[in-house]
């Protein structure tokens, strides 16, 4: 009565997509608050937006897009049984993730150094809308940063599995799902970046 190991790549991908929906909705709650409060405090949001460093924000956007490209290329490389190249590309993805986090760190420290962080005296003294803007900024970029971290760890773990041969040119669903997750992290940033840095 022993059956062969159950394997269903389409099912695995379906499950991953469903999970990605849940991630979108998680951030959806924050975007909803953003929309409501933007309508209420358009001027304060605009002032808040000008205080963010759009050069660093753009750099991070470029870095994340590059990392997503690397992740996609790693998958193609693996499907062609080019294990070394796949691992190198994943390494590049993780390197980009680290770069993103470093820039985020620089941005956050500068803001905190100026007394701008949730609950700070500086924000309490200013107009309420600005405090709301920065609270949302820190929450959105913070939770997104956490996802970057989780994604990078996930991809590192998959790299180890490629090295051990467990994930390979015939069995690449894990990398495919990992890359999907990485693209989601990228996608959410694509919305956060203009909303906070650009349009206002």
């Amino acid at each position, binding site marked *: *009565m022993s*059956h062969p190991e*159950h394997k*269903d790549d*389409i*099912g*695995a991908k*379906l*499950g991953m997509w*469903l*999970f990605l*929906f*849940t*991630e*979108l*909705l*998680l*951030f*959806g*709650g*924050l975007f*909803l*608050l953003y929309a*409501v*409060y933007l309508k*209420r*405090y358009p001027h*304060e949001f605009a002032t808040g937006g000008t205080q963010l460093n759009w050069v660093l924000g753009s750099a991070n956007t470029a870095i994340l897009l590059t990392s997503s490209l690397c992740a996609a290329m790693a998958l193609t490389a693996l499907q062609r049984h080019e294990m070394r190249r796949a691992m190198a590309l994943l390494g590049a993805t993780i390197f980009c993730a680290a770069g993103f986090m470093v820039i985020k760190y620089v941005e956050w420290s500068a803001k905190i150094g100026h007394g701008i962080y*949730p*609950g700070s005296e500086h924000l*309490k003294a200013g*107009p*309420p*809308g600005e*405090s*709301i803007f920065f*609270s*949302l900024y*820190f*929450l959105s970029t913070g*939770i997104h940063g956490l996802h970057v971290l989780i994604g990078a760890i996930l991809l590192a773990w998959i790299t180890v599995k490629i090295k051990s041969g467990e994930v390979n040119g015939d069995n690449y669903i894990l990398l495919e799902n990992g890359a999907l997750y990485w693209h989601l992290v990228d996608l959410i940033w694509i919305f956060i970046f203009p909303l906070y840095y650009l349009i206002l």
Partner: protein
Amino acid sequence: MDSLEPTQPLNNSFWNDTGKTGITSWIFSTDHKRIGLLYFYVTFGFFLTGVLLGLLLRIELMAPGRTIMGPQTYNALFTVHGVVMIFLFIIPGIPGAFGNLVMPIQVGARDVAFPRLNLLSWWLYIIGALIVLTSLFSGGGAPDTGWTFYVPFSSRTGTNVSLAVFGVFIVGFSSILTGVNFVTTIHRLRAEGMSWGRLPLFTWSLYATAWVQILATPILAITLVLIMAERLLGTGLFDPSRGGDPVMYQHLFWIYSHPAVYIMILPAMGIISDIIPVFSRKPIFGYKMIAFSSIAIAAAGSLVWGHHMFTSGMSDTAVMVFSFLTFIVAIPSAIKVFNWISTLYKGSISLEAPMLFALSFILLFSIGGLSGLILGAAATDVHVHDTHFVVGHFHYVMFGGTGFAIFAAMHYWLPKFYGRRYAEKPAVVAWALMFTGFNVLYFTMQVLGMKGMPRRYYDYLPEFANLNLVATIGSWILAAGLVIMVVNLFRGLWWGVPFEGNPWGGASLEWTVPTPPPTENFIEEPVVTHGPYDFSNTERS
């Protein structure tokens, strides 16, 4: 469970056919049946805990003034009663326990699509539950906000709200992963011939539920994160003095928590749709409409959250839109009720314990549903908002509905997995007591609410004293019935007479596999040739 003697009915079943029987073979098992039983015992344990807390609340309300506890204790108890019952019992209850036990067999699969993820779900649930329990006895003491964690109180109270909220956050992850697992299972693992039109309605209801779990729970997750941020970082997003808006909290909370009541009731409706035809010996009336109405309830139910907020200061336009949408949900719910009644018509009805619970579900759910319309209509809601009428209403739906459906499922399906059954007569006595006590308790609450008694107060005016006493006596009758049911059921499952073959005469796949089922459910891959309610080839054994 380990004390069970491996006698005849258990041989070659999932209880022992892998040769593993220790505690670790259970808590690290990826077998959907073992995980289902784990969920069942833990969720049911939390149910009994919640009942105990509820009884204490009723004793406090037995007479005006302080009876057995002060206001702070009362606030903590109703909060914990709500959190335990909702997040730890009723949401994971049916999908986690009976969904896991039955659904993979109903679709003809050896297990769910992601067995290890399933085990992770259970562990996340346990870890979350432990964190919630820790929050009751540490820090500033048990939360006293009510299970809704409304701001501004939840962001200011000194009680242990942050930890409790974090525990619920973890439990939410468990719920999401179960949803992902079930949708994938139902899409990918149906056996040959198991078309969508042949899925048992319990599985259909789990499918609709799983989508709600996937789409609504993340909003709860972010809302809970925001409460923690509000308390720990001082984000001020819901604090009017800092530019925030407390009504936005209520919106975010109910965007999840209203759909969540459909996570609770939809699978219960599925249980009823499976039991009624079996005990009427008649195919279900309106199969397609019942399946469709599950999806319709899941979809429409996601757009009605505002009806919790008619008195919170929304715009009149919003009130009218949400009120209208709320009435829309009544349509698919009524479709189900009418179809169940039509199934009974001219059926060969046998009134055994599962059927009695199922029939009382129809009545109690209908009372609860109709009182829900009184609350859904903005004009009447304003008068009964935050009164005992609301408490009576949601206990009719959640306890009279989902609770009784779970009792029905316990009598219907658990013997299948134990190979032993309970005694019929005590089960019927227990049902009669519970049904009586239930109505005495909660109908009285609705009357009290109509008379103006507010909810969540530990004291009340003297004119409410008599009815409160009646309600409390009702709670004791209900509890007496519950004790008899629990003793009879578990004594039967552990030591009772054998339950073999297909005693109910069910036609869905779970009744075609050995009792109890082997670890991989089917000895041969099943090929499905008829619908789940086609009784022409099944006999009661």
